[in-house]
């Protein structure tokens, strides 16, 4: 809008000769006023509930437990020195990377299979396979928790039925980690599937036909047509899911609540533990701020991907 009023200024002659130019300016100003008013609620939400709290978190993280004194980076220091927190970092990264890779692979596989069956049946299968994504994760994890229950595990029942010994799902650190990943993959893979399916459908069939005439096998078609065409959406989905998985809270909270022995704590659950449950708000803020640099890097790449995609589609 600034440019419009500039243009009006450029065109303006002495006021007496052309009184209308001020009317034009008023019109332009009015339009930007309306636009500003329309975005004001959005700006307040972003500013008041995202930007301001984010800044406030940084400030909080530099206070002492009672929030009475400024202690600089001491909270971060203490955290990095603590064995538990180092395992939180490790577990968060391990969890996020493993889970996202698995989700991407399973999602891609399912999307591909779905794409290959007759169109008539696709709707039904897609409808069934997306169910895990639709149920609020806190509630479906409750079901998983019950399935992992040490004495009543229905999964162990099936495992025993085919002749293997019971698995201590949530009781043993490594199994607990795997359990959390299983539930996360179960919950998130359908989302990948849907995204990939949409991308697969956007590749024109003629490309495959042309490739087939050029002598490409199915595998080469995938390698040289499908993957390059989907590259952008694959990376956007993976990066986006990395953020969400990295910051995941509900599954850990319901399934293991961080245990056993804090070995499945991730940033979010640990921040909750330290900040809200033990009442050390500044240190909790410091824990969650550790997520920030990584998220910023990922966000940068997502944004680049989205912009590129927007340009491609334009």
């Amino acid at each position: 809008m600034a440019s419009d009023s500039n243009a009006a200024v450029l065109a303006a002659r002495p006021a007496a000769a052309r009184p209308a130019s001020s009317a034009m300016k008023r019109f332009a100003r009015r339009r930007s006023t309306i636009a500003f008013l329309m975005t004001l609620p959005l700006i307040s939400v972003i500013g008041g509930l995202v930007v301001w709290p984010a800044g406030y978190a940084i400030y909080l993280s530099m206070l002492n437990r009672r929030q009475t004194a400024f202690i600089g980076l001491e909270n971060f220091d203490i955290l990095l020195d603590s064995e538990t927190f180092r395992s939180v970092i490790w577990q968060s990264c391990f969890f996020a990377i493993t889970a996202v890779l698995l989700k991407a692979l399973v999602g891609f596989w399912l999307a591909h299979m779905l794409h290959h069956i007759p169109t008539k049946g696709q709707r039904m299968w897609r409808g069934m396979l997306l169910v895990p994504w639709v149920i609020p994760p806190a509630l479906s994890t409750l079901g998983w928790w019950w399935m992992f229950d040490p004495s009543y595990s229905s999964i162990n029942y099936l495992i025993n039925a085919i002749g293997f010994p019971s698995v201590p799902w949530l009781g043993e650190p490594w199994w607990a980690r795997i359990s959390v990943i299983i539930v996360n993959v179960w919950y998130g893979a359908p989302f990948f599937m849907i995204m990939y399916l949409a991308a697969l459908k956007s590749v024109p069939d003629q490309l495959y036909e042309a490739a087939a005439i050029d002598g490409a096998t199915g595998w080469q078609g995938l390698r040289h047509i499908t993957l390059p065409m989907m590259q952008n959406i694959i990376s956007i989905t993976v990066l986006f899911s990395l953020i969400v998985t990295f910051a995941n809270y509900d599954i850990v909270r319901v399934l293991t609540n961080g245990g056993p022995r804090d070995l499945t704590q991730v940033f979010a659950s640990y921040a909750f533990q330290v900040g809200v449950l033990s009442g050390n708000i500044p240190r909790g803020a410091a824990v969650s701020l550790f997520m920030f640099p990584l998220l910023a890097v990922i966000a940068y790449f997502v944004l680049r991907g989205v912009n590129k995609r927007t340009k491609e589609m334009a």
Partner: protein
Amino acid sequence: MAQVSLRKIVKEYEGGVQAVKGIDLDIADHEFVVLVGPSGCGKSTTLRMIAGLEEISSGEIDIGGAVVNDVPPRDRDIAMVFQNYALYPHMSVYDNMAFGLMLRKFDKAEIRRRVENAAKILDIGMLLDRKPKALSGGQRQRVAMGRAIVRDPKVFLFDEPLSNLDAKLRVQMRTEIKKVHQTVRTTTIYVTHDQVEAMTLADRVVVMNHGVIEQVGPPQELYHHPRTRFVAGFIGSPAMNFIPARLEARGDNLVLLLPLGTELAVPEHRAERYRTHVGKQVTFGIRPEHLTDTQHISKQHVALLTLTPEVIEPMGMETLAHIKLEGTEICARLDPMVEAAPGVPLALAADMNNMHLIDDATGLVI
């Protein structure tokens, strides 16, 4: 209804692109004016400034005697038909046409009367309940025109309304638009890049190029008396032939010296006009229909020349011969009965009464 005048209209987009560079144009009441020119010459920009969709950088636009520079589009009392029709997809045809009247708080009965009247003019009475999706291209075009007609505005603005239609429908709708204008007589400004459309529809044609007006005039005048090389080349299809030449004096008479040494005599009554350019490099312009076979021409002031065509295109009612002459492409229009073959020398006659001579230095027709 009203006259429209543009006075020194300039449009500068952000970034300094001057799309329109100070044009003056007076359009009379009831007149049908067509803006024509190549892509990007500023036609749409001009039209949109008249509509109020684009701000005017400087200059004045006057509709019906009032300067409208600062009047928003809705108060300019104009109606516009867009290239892609811009029908509201969620409204029925009736509602599409009624929308503008409804916003202006016309009463229901009056709206119905006007919509039905417009539907009758355009013969779309049976489509009123349909959604735009369920219409063919030509029908959408009619609805878009109906939306303009019901408003009974001072001015109709059309921005390439026919370019989304196939060739046959385009000809049909062209006639339709002309008929509508003869019925409602509203001042009309029509933008197109198709010079045939311009010639057939317009009372006056405005030829634009690079943001300026090259020439304004009735179609016949533009055709026979183009004022610039651009207009000469733009109007007419196939386009006028341009051949580099030198003007030489042969006693009292003038001749044109073409490449390859051909000499063409200039008619005496034109000698006076051209005398100042003797000895200069000029461009000889002649339309394909004035460069034709020798058998069917027996007039005065005909210059004969023999050229070898490269391609022969039989069109049915005529045959086009394409000839390459020293790097310039020339097109001649032959009678279909004439025997012509590529690579076979062909005797041609140039009707020098209809020749044009263009000053290479200024680009103006002499």
